[in-house]
């Protein structure tokens, strides 16, 4: 069972690197969607006995992260006529190397942490750190708002992965709360993106520096 | 014959050479050759199994009793000094002859002898003070050799940079030896591993010796000095004198206790030096600067081997450490041989065409077939390709690193990145030397100078041939040279005296022979097959372009464009582009230059700030007596208040 979870975390890490290395927005969004589904599946694998609440949350997560948010993002991209190229300020190869180095560092860091013995062999903690780092690299190194939203989503996935460690002890309401937060956040960004697009004819956040006061 | 008389003869010959060099070139050459042959004999007899030679005299020099000693580590380096020193003196006989340089040729001969003599002194001294004196002498001798052509401004600048950087190193070494003498109570050198309180002194030695070796980022003096010196001087500096920095590090690490971090730092610095050195080399368009940066890279490879060997010692004398040390020591020899060969080749090109700029050369193989063939051999050897000698040493280093990894010791965490970086470095070295060889010798001549080149004479060709033969000898019979290196390893680390030839080196040696034979046979067969068909000659395919010009060939900069671009963050190349304008564009230029980035962007600004601060402070020094008395009073008051306040607390 643990190996299945590890496989999924490995997939999530691979998708992190894909998101860092791909030059087209649709593939970044696709990577985020698949990662959301993979992460949503995990509570089911972690709980040994079937539990209705867990199942519900898992299905909900998969639906929201795997379908709703990507569809919203794609629609925003279409309606706002954004170019499909990502337009990085940190190049693809450097961000890829950063992400890979961060992943390796995350594995080393997780070894040093005083974890519970049942979590020792698990990739959950390194996967979580790696995703958070990837999210930050995307947020820092991409200038298109949509790509930044994707970075934010990956960052949230990392936090969610960490939360899974506590699945036995913490009420799942917390996770649901995070999810809700996020959905609202994406909606808001979606609306803002639309407004910005209408007002300024561009979604390049690096051109939006005049409003800093 | 024991080494003693041979060494005495060599020293006497070289000392006589210092005098004779001023007056007669032939006598000087004979003296130098005999002396270097004697030194080589002494080193060889020791490496082949002779007893350690030692000479102690109560006769004091500079207040210290004279203590000379030749052990296997010294002999290994002495052999290199003797070979390159001898070859260089023959080369200089034509390259820097009395006819061409009536002013500086006698001076050059004199300082050459002095350089060899003082390097021998460094290798034999067993007393810290005498070591420092010899070290300083050889630094000064090298300075005068670099600045033989002192009417040229850039030569003078390179010389001053070299001298000031060297003195920074000497300062660290002086502090190192003085602190050592203060703590041990004697200037005598030798193993003192049990005195753990001496460990921090290693950092001083690392800076001092690392600066001489050209370790990144202390290599700043090296490219301009090696590029602007006469080529035979560049050869001995790149091939031998920077190795004395390695010699110093070997001695320090062999004798003194080390800080725990030292091996890790050394291997890390080695990896950085190798990678950054070759990245800079690849981007150069000046042939001799390229070779100089490539020396930085090779020092990195040697440091990786040395650092790894120290890790093995810390790890309980693991077997892979011996492979790494043997690889490093072999590389000291190999690099000394092929780098001198390449600098001699560069000198021949410079002699024939008057330029070091690769984009002004091209097609020289026709005029200079010997130089071209020997340079190609050296280029393949320095790229670490089988079946040549560079591969032997790199293979040993790789093998040690891989064994450290498969042994799963903590050292693996250094060995894995080092092996990967070594791989990248090797591939970049290959690219660098394809570029260098091709730009100079292949294709069509790009300028008139290249069109009217001529082959060098026998005095210049001979030394190159000897070095090439030595390269091939080490390549094809590594097992013959292994015992010599093994003896040096034993002298460095007494636990490692028993180093039988690895069985795989036997196999590799025979495979190298087979490969060389097969490659030769295949080349000849295909050439014969091509000639057999008559081989009509036609123009190179030019895509039906009407008026091709030799300047349309791929240039040095365009060749380095792709991989050089990946290192732009490090190299900081400066570009000037003037696009063609209008319907009938007249002039369009593009100039690209890779600066001495570390020097110009880091050291110079820092030095400027220091200079400004010191200029400001200098205003205190104005010569008015009254103020000086005031300083004394202020200082006394200050001291007094410290004493009073300190006493109260």
């Amino acid at each position, binding site marked *: 069972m643990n190996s299945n979870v590890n496989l999924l975390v490995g997939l999530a890490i691979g998708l992190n690197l894909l998101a860092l290395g791909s030059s087209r927005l649709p593939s970044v969004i696709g990577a985020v969607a698949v990662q959301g589904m993979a992460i949503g599946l995990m509570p089911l694998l972690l709980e040994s006995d079937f539990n209705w609440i867990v199942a519900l949350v898992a299905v909900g997560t998969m639906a929201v992260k795997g379908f709703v948010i990507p569809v919203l993002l794609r629609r925003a991209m279409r309606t706002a006529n954004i170019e499909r190229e990502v337009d990085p300020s940190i190049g693809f190869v450097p961000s890829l190397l950063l992400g890979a180095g961060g992943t390796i560092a995350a594995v080393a860091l997780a070894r040093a942490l005083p974890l519970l013995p049942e979590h020792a062999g698990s990739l959950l903690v390194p996967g979580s750190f790696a995703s958070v780092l990837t999210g930050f690299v995307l947020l820092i190194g991409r200038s298109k708002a949509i790509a930044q939203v994707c970075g934010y989503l990956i960052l949230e996935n990392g936090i969610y992965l960490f939360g899974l460690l506590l699945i036995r002890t913490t009420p799942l309401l917390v996770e649901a709360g995070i999810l809700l937060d996020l959905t609202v956040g994406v909606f808001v960004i979606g609306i803002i993106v639309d407004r910005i697009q209408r007002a300024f004819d561009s979604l390049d956040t690096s051109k939006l520096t005049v409003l800093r006061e | 014959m024991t080494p003693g008389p041979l060494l005495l003869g060599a020293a006497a010959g070289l000392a006589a050479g210092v005098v004779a060099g001023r007056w007669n070139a032939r006598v000087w050459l004979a003296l130098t050759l005999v002396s270097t042959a004697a030194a080589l004999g002494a080193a060889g007899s020791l490496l082949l199994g002779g007893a350690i030679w030692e000479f102690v005299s109560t006769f004091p020099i500079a207040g210290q009793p004279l203590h000379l000693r030749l052990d296997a580590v010294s002999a290994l380096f002495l052999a290199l000094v003797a070979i390159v020193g001898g070859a260089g003196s023959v080369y200089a006989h034509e390259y820097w002859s009395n006819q061409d340089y009536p002013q500086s040729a006698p001076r050059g001969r004199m300082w050459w002898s002095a350089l060899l003599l003082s390097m021998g002194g460094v290798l034999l001294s067993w007393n810290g003070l005498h070591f420092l004196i010899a070290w300083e002498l050889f630094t000064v001798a090298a300075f005068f050799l670099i600045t033989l052509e002192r009417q040229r401004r850039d030569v003078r600048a390179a010389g001053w940079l070299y001298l000031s950087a060297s003195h920074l190193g000497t300062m660290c070494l002086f502090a190192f030896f003085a602190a050592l003498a203060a703590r041990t109570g004697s200037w005598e050198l030798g193993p003192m591993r049990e005195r753990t309180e001496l460990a921090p002194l290693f950092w001083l030695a690392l800076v001092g010796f690392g600066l001489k070796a050209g370790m990144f980022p202390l290599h700043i003096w090296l490219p301009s000095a090696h590029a602007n010196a006469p080529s035979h001087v560049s050869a001995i500096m790149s091939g031998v004198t920077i190795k004395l920095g390695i010699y110093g590090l070997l001695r320090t690490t062999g004798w003194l206790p080390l800080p725990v971090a030292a091996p890790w730092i050394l291997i890390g610095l080695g990896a950085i030096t190798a990678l950054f050195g070759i990245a800079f080399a690849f981007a150069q368009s000046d042939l001799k600067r390229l070779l100089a940066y490539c020396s930085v890279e090779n020092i990195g490879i040697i440091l990786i081997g040395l650092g790894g060997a120290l890790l093995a010692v810390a790890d309980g004398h693991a077997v892979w450490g011996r492979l790494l040390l043997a690889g490093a020591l072999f590389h000291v020899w190999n690099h000394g041989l092929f780098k001198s060969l390449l600098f001699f080749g560069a000198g021949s090109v410079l002699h024939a065409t008057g330029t070091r700029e690769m984009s002004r050369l091209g097609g020289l193989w026709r005029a200079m077939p010997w130089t071209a063939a020997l340079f190609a051999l050296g280029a393949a050897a320095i790229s670490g390709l089988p079946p040549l000698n560079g*591969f032997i040493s790199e293979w040993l280093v790789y093998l040690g690193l891989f064994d450290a990894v498969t042994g799963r010791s903590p050292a693996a965490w250094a060995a894995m990145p080092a092996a990967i970086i070594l791989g990248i470095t090797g591939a970049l070295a290959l690219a660098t030397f394809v570029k260098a060889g*091709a730009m100079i010798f292949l294709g069509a001549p790009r300028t008139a100078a290249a069109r009217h080149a001529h082959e060098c004479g026998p005095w210049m060709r001979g030394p190159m041939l000897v070095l090439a033969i030595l390269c091939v000898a080490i390549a094809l019979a590594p097992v013959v040279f292994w015992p010599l290196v093994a003896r040096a390893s034993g002298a460095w680390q007494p636990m490692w005296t028993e180093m039988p030839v690895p069985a795989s080196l036997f196999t590799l040696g025979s495979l190298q022979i087979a490969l060389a034979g097969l490659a030769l046979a295949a080349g000849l067969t295909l050439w014969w097959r091509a000639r057999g068909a008559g081989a009509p000659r036609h123009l190179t395919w030019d895509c039906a372009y009407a008026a091709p010009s030799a300047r349309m060939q791929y240039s040095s900069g365009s060749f380095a464009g792709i991989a050089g671009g990946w290192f732009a963050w490090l190299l900081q190349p400066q570009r000037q582009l003037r696009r063609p304008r209008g319907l009938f564009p007249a002039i369009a230029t593009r100039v690209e230059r890779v600066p001495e980035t570390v020097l110009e962007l880091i050291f110079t600004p820092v030095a400027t700030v220091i200079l400004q601060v010191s200029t400001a402070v200098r205003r205190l020094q104005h010569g008015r007596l009254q103020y000086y008395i005031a300083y004394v009073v202020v200082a006394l008051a200050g001291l007094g208040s410290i004493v009073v306040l300190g006493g109260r607390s």
Partner: protein
Amino acid sequence: MNAFAIAFVEFVVRLAGWLVLAPLLPGIINKVKAWVGGRRGPPVLQLYYDLARLWQKGVVLSTLVSPGFVAGPAVAWVAVLGAALLLPLGPIGASLSFHGDVLLLIYLLALARFCMAWAAMETGSAFEGMGAAREVSYAVLAEAALITAVLALSVHSGSVTLVTMLTPAAGAGAVLLAAGLFTVLLAENCRVPFDDPSTHLELTMIHEVMILDHSGPPLAAILHGASMKLLLFAVLLVEAVLPLGGLSRLAAAGALAAGVLVVTVGVGLVESLMARLAFRRVPLLLTTAFLLCLFALLVAWKGGDA
């Protein structure tokens, strides 16, 4: 004496196998491409005909070239053949095996690259300079990936000898390693998406543009050497992933042949379904290959700890 004779016969058979079977691979790739494109395509044995024809032909040399122009392809061919002979073939082992032979293999491939680039630069043509510059530059990244892959195999098997490195069952990182090595295979053999072997525009080529001026027997040596290199990488990839050591001789031979066929068809499919990458994207893909191998290395390290 008898043992020596057997060893000799085995060596000759192995040599003949490499020499004779290698030109099949480009034929199969072309057949797959034609099949996907709905054409009939050239016969699978086309390269054999080409080689025979080229060997008969005369040579035209450029006015600028030195003997190195002809010697380069010859030495490169010898180097690739030597590297191929070092490679063990499943349970049959290698004809010659020693501690550290894998490093010789990598450096023999580097020797081939040096010779090919040198020969290309002989002509003084800007096209060939372009090709040589690309070849040696991209090889830097490919070499990093290859060394890392070899490190992963070494860590997994605890050995630096090819025979023992390639025998044990592939560990958990096999998928990563396979993907990384397959990308290196494509790059080192100048296949799509790094290079398009069937293009006819000099500006967009790597390998083909380096050999523009070669003709006759030297060209035959180059083409044959290229096909041997492709076979070498395919065999290396299959043996790194499939545990051939545990099988019987016949089964191993079958598995090896099937694996090589799968890889070859895979190359053909990639070539049919993908377009060549823009050159500025090539480093990204090669970095990805390096990272795949790096993660395979870490997985192998972790696997040995547990």
